[in-house]
């Protein structure tokens, strides 16, 4: 995933201070109270809560529906480009050689995200790759502010990083460790695939209607 940050020409200190006040209000709609410190990996139940916010809990849905709902919630435009191998044969080769299956580009300036995946991917892998990249958007992984300080995991909880402006769906801040961010995006993809397939047969969806 790649981020194109916008060029800021506004009086910096004043606006950054205002953004500090605005941040908690902006994130009010996200899944439960924010978890700013170390946290554990996303569970299927927590993911169900995210789906409920998107209005998809207990429903059968396709990755397209998840993408549309996420784009609407984050107020960004998300586009998926499935590139046929005949157009850019080198894309598949380069991605395959780099050990990646897809690419996510995010532009704050244009308020849009684009996912590029080769058309030759097997259908299941294609679906999971797109959901994986959408998972990065949901987690707010593209909004992290790199931190120079070394951070340590506490028990089963892992260090997270603060965010710059922008909305995210997830309850907790993104992990500081990239491999953990990737792992959580994989988890989101698998949870989304099963939730979309099972609809109201998903046991986690039923838990949200039977809280006592």
């Amino acid at each position, binding site marked *: 995933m790649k981020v194109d940050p916008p060029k800021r020409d506004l009086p910096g200190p004043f606006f950054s201070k205002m953004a500090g006040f605005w941040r908690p209000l902006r994130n009010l709609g996200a899944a439960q109270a924010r978890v700013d410190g170390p946290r554990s990996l996303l569970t299927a139940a927590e993911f169900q809560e995210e789906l409920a916010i998107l209005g998809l809990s207990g429903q059968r849905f396709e990755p397209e529906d998840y993408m549309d709902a996420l784009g609407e919630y984050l107020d960004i435009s998300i586009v998926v480009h499935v590139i046929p191998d005949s157009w850019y044969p080198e894309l598949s080769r380069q991605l395959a050689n780099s050990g990646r*299956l897809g690419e996510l580009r995010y532009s704050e300036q244009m308020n849009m995200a684009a996912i590029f995946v080769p058309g030759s991917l097997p259908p*299941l892998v294609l679906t999971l790759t797109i959901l994986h990249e959408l998972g990065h958007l949901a987690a707010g992984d593209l909004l992290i502010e790199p931190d120079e300080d070394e951070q340590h995991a506490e028990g089963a909880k892992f260090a997270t990083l603060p965010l710059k402006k922008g909305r995210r769906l997830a309850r907790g801040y993104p992990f500081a460790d990239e491999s953990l961010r990737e792992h959580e995006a994989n988890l989101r993809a698998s949870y989304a695939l099963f939730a979309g397939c099972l609809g109201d047969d998903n046991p986690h969806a039923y838990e949200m209607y039977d809280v*006592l």
Partner: protein
Amino acid sequence: MSAAQHQALVLGGASFVAFVFFLCFLLPSRRTEFSVFAACNLLFVALMFGAVAFVDLSGGRTEILVAVMTELPVVLIVAWVCLALAGGLPARLGTLPAEPVARRPGLRAILASAPLVLLLSVVLATIVGLVWPSPAMRVYAPAPPHFLVLKALIMVPEGLYSGVAALVFVMAGRAPGLKRRIYFKNLAFAVGMACISFIAAGSTVFAGLRVWLPGGDRRAILETLNTLEACLAITCILAFTVGLSLRYTPAIATTLLHRLQTGWLHAQEQFESLEWQAVSGGATDKLTHASDAVVEACRIKGLSESDTQKALATIRLVAVMKDPSGETQHITPEAARKLYELQEEILCDDVLASKISWAAGWRSRGREPQTVKSAPLHDALEAALDLVGYHGESGGARARPLWYCIVAVSAADAKMIDRSRVTMQLRDGAGHREALEAYGAARRSLRMLDALRRRMEGRQE
């Protein structure tokens, strides 16, 4: 026995019967944290009302303390329900909010504030009552204005929170496509919480009447209100009992789902992506030629797209298993066998196998989605394991589909597998002969195409 003692006896009796029902029928079969908590509250309420009915607790501050204690279990129930709906209970008790609450952060914040606000109001009411004592337990006696303050401090927030909770249960029950049992469960809890809300409103009105209504009319109106309150309390207990008795077990267990996510899905994705990386990242010429020939042979024989895909997946698998590179070292016959067994496990469960599917491509709603059974990988795994000699029953008496024979011939020609093994497996049957013919024709046409391409390139130069 006074009217107040009579009412306490009725409410205490109803609470005790409900407690016995919980203890004998509900808790052994459906023990949730909330049902245990509710049972404890019922016992406490029964004891408190029993004490009021049989022991004279009137007079001064004792009366205030008893009045507050009888309200406390209801306050605790309302606080628990609101917190559960907001998803604010400790992790051990389940942290998922109700679906309508998850989408409304404002509603969530209101519900989450219930325990704090309710307990604060109880403390404040106790302080008011202790500073200015009033005849809280003598139900028909005239009362001073601070009695209304005491009552309102507890009842107004209790009524509001239970009203909001009732509304949330109604919203949850109205969700489209909800199972009937869950619908009735939410309906029962909505009725229960609405009853608490009405009781709270009734109690506040009751206190106001005791303060302001003159003696003659007061008694008759208060008696009617008291009867109504008792009826609402019994309805509330019944509604909660029904709600807690209704049980719905999802068709797919959470543990099974977790096993599929961490087992099958992870294995299949890793398998397919590594294979794709190996093929796309510049697989061996041997595989490229073999797969081209397989596709061409399938086309010559007029095989379906599905069979062609199976043949292609099989030849790739055989190539990767027989010639593993750095990335594909995990695609071993053992791993393939394990994945095949996981797939078979899913296929044994008809409900699960029919539900787990994925799109055949991006924005392809018109096309039939793939399932574990219909995806080429399932048959390809079986065929590839057979060809590399890793399948349990490879003694080749079985009838093989034509696509399998084409792959076998192609793999043998590319020296991926032993030719004699193919001959033994297929036993020179009609399928084998057909595959040999098709493969030969495919090779010839590919050679011609190759020659043509080279000639064209030569002319351009």
